[in-house]
């Protein structure tokens, strides 16, 4: 199993992703520089967290035009598995590979802590190892994570099951008190209509070892193994 971790100028979770994928989950992993025009032979492509291009203009707005993004688009259109974490999620939204957008956190603060998310759809390649409704504990670290989209898009996503993760209380119930950034409908992660592209604000790559406080991220990142089995 081979995974690519795309590196933009300003990515800062690329090493975390590399470590989790290779040392914990057994992938063969390449860093792929943003100026590369091609992505060949990968079973999983990860757009990592960070501050690509310093978040200039809007998070992800500039990274979206990097040469590698055309290759990511082609790869996704062929059915390849793409996961965008934090800034990677922002980039996928800016690129139109995922619906909606990520705006400034409701309290304006950069939030760095563990949160709880609920698996809303366990029929995606990324969530097959979870039960529907299962609660995961994952870390977040972002200033622009408030997910928004228009009502028509929201209804369409609900109907298709594209809302994959929601922020929740430890017991799995939904309440604004447990929605850290004010996301619409407490949305923490969404997929494209064909479910091979997933974006999420929490960091599964930082939740793969007990030493780091949670191992709940492992099963998300095992997607390529699960998909082949």
């Amino acid at each position, binding site marked *: 199993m081979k995974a690519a971790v795309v590196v933009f100028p300003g990515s800062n979770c690329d090493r975390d992703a590399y470590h989790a994928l290779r040392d914990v989950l057994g992938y063969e992993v390449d860093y792929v520089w943003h100026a590369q025009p091609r992505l060949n032979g990968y079973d999983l492509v990860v757009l990592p967290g960070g501050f690509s291009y310093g978040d200039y*203009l*809007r998070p992800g*707005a500039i990274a979206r*035009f990097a040469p590698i993004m055309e290759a990511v688009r082609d790869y996704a259109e062929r059915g390849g598995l793409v996961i965008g974490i934090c800034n990677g999620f922002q980039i996928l*939204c*800016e690129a139109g590979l995922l*619906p*909606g*957008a990520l*705006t*400034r*956190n*409701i*309290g*304006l603060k950069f939030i760095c802590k563990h949160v709880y998310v609920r698996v809303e759809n366990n029929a995606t390649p990324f969530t097959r190892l979870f039960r529907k409704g299962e609660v995961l504990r994952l870390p977040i670290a972002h200033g622009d994570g*408030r997910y*928004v*989209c*228009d009502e028509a898009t929201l209804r369409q996503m609900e109907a298709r099951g594209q809302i994959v993760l929601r922020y929740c209380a430890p017991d799995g119930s939904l309440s604004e008190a447990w929605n850290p950034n*004010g996301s619409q409908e407490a949305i923490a992660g969404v997929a494209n209509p064909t479910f091979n592209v997933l974006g999420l604000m929490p960091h599964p790559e930082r939740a793969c070892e007990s030493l780091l406080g949670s191992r709940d991220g492992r099963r998300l990142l095992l997607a390529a193994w699960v998909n082949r089995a």
Partner: protein
Amino acid sequence: MPKARVYITLKPTLLDAQGRTLQNALHQLGFETVQNVRVGKYLEIELAADGDPHAQIEAMCQQLLANPVIEQYRYEVVEE
């Protein structure tokens, strides 16, 4: 040389977290007449004289400067 002034703001239907915080701060300073604050971006773009500046700025806004999912924009072109 044509110069464009571009104004980008969050759509009115979206909560502007920065604007709301500023509104609260202004109230605390005693500016009680403040009813609403929206924060946006202002860009000045200088263009070469050839081509239609409006068409160019429109294309720039659509492709990069504004995100149509969350933002709206307007601009004016002046000669300097």
